[in-house]
């Protein structure tokens, strides 16, 4: 059922025994975080227990998030704070961590990276040993009209950055004039949900500005691109046929699962709705069909019932 070309993905709502049958066939379970296992600083009811139980039943559990604002060690603390016991740093794959891994292992960057991003990305780059171009905050005399460039910069990485300025956009654009300079984006999310149904601009909006300025397309690390799955697989050896992706955002999590040949489950505790899932399923365009999940659950807590029966 998973990976069927041309769609036909069913959006089948699962309950009890069906979930158990699905899980029997899947050795690896990949969870998105925001809207799936937690919302802001609140765990989704039952989520910590689900993760523990899956591990007890011998499943391997991974967390795959486009959120690039924290380094992995902060995520470990958040998991602990929200009641998830025994989640190890190695099981957490954020777009920040994977961007650093990409630069180090895939691009094998010889030189520095110019970063439009926040603390989480900078920490992961440092931990991976990828040199970052220094950002001098207030150089006297520097303006958007003549900012000094670092000749060692061989890549530009753009992600969520609350200190984004026109100057950074102009500088990044200058670096990207050289076709040898790599152009990476942590993730494509145009906005991120905040508490209470509010939103904040995401990495995708900053990437769009830079793509427009440079007339170049970024290589996107985060979901729905395959790279995060390849990153996990290179460390843990995952077989797509025995892996399950659970997420709340059709255009990122489900499409990611589809791109990697995984079975996909949409949970309704986050961004996307059942109606939106149906619309993708019924669309004539192949790309849209790939955003329709195989299965739907109300909440990951539904898995708990299946495991406990």
């Amino acid at each position: 059922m998973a990976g069927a070309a041309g769609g036909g993905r069913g959006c089948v709502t699962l309950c009890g025994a069906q979930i158990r049958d699905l899980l029997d066939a899947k050795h690896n379970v990949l969870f998105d975080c925001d809207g799936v296992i937690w919302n802001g600083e609140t765990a989704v009811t039952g989520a910590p227990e689900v993760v523990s139980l899956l591990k007890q039943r011998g499943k391997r559990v991974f967390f795959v998030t486009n959120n690039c604002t924290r380094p992995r060690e902060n995520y470990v603390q958040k998991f602990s704070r929200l009641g998830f016991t025994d989640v190890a740093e190695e099981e957490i794959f954020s777009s920040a961590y994977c961007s650093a891994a990409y630069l180090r292992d895939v691009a094998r960057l010889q030189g520095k990276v110019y970063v439009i991003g926040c603390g989480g990305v900078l920490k992961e780059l440092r931990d991976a040993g990828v040199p970052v171009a220094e950002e001098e905050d207030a150089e006297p005399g520097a303006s958007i009209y003549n900012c000094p460039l670092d000749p060692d910069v061989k890549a530009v990485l753009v992600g969520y950055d609350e200190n984004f300025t026109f100057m950074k956009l102009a500088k990044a654009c200058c670096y990207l004039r050289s076709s040898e300079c790599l152009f990476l984006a942590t993730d494509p999310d145009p906005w991120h949900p905040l508490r209470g149904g509010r939103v904040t601009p995401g990495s995708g909006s900053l990437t769009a500005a830079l793509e427009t300025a440079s007339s170049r397309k970024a290589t996107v690390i985060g979901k729905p691109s395959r790279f995060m799955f390849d990153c996990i697989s290179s460390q843990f050896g995952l077989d797509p046929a025995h892996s399950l992706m659970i997420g709340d955002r059709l255009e990122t999590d489900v499409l990611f699962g589809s791109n990697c040949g995984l079975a996909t489950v949409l949970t309704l505790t986050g961004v996307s709705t059942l109606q939106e899932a149906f619309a993708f399923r019924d669309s004539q365009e192949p790309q849209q069909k790939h955003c329709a999940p195989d299965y739907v659950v109300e909440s990951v807590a539904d898995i708990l019932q299946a495991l406990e029966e």
Partner: protein
Amino acid sequence: MAASKCTRLTGVLSRQLLDSVDSVLFDCDGVIWRGDQAIPGAPEVINSLKKNRKRVFFVTNNSTKTRQMYADKLGKLGFNASADEVFGTAYCSAVYLKNVCKLDGKVYLIGSNAMRQELEDVGIRPVGVGPDPVSGVQKDWANVPLDNEVRAVLVGFDEHFSYMKLNRALQYLCNPDCQFVGTNTDTRLPLEGGKAVPGTGCLLKAVETAAQRQAQVVGKPNIFMFECVASQFGLDPERCLMVGDRLDTDIMLGSNCGLKTLLTLTGVSTVAEAEANQKSECPQRQKMVPDYYIESIADILPALQA
């Protein structure tokens, strides 16, 4: 006229073309000046056109100056021109918000002081101009205090563009009744001294992406820029010539409005690009084929002085 297009403008044709029009509309960057230098011969051409009793207008997507600031620059470079002949997007966006959007309320402005001034001159109060660095933490940002009199978001060129401005615009645009207008989509802004920086198009794309909404764009090739001039001066499109250096803005505007079009080669677009458009089957690309092209507008001078 439709049959023969993309013709090199020679002396004889120049005379015929000029006789067939009463008004000439000029783009600025790459046509009459580059940065702060006039294209050699351009002031003489404009002044000569006026002596020949042609009306002259300046139509630019650049939102960083008011009409008066443009008039001052024109004067300094030797062009005989007045503020009411200038139609930049700072001015035209203000008119658009007032007359087309029928804006009743304030506008959240990502843009320049020039835009603020043009808005105030038509009686619209902008909020948000100037630096706006982020403060607080992420959870505060969705709760930035919003001015509940804001009924529109306007995006133009803004060197103070920041994440916080993008965030505020997004918060306002979450209300589907809030109007969303952009000055232009040009991806580069030419500067004094011949350099260029990312243009308004980049900032607009950031806001459109975050808000998942499309802006109404005022600048070329939107016909509004021509309608703005035409409504104030009673122009007959068939007796107008649009002179520009960009196929996708200037020439497209001319095609959209039924004007005669002249591409000058002192700026962005090339003859090869025009001819490629001409050979293409695509109707959109066909609109980006000028009637005539010329190396520089200075080459019209002999025909004017004859």
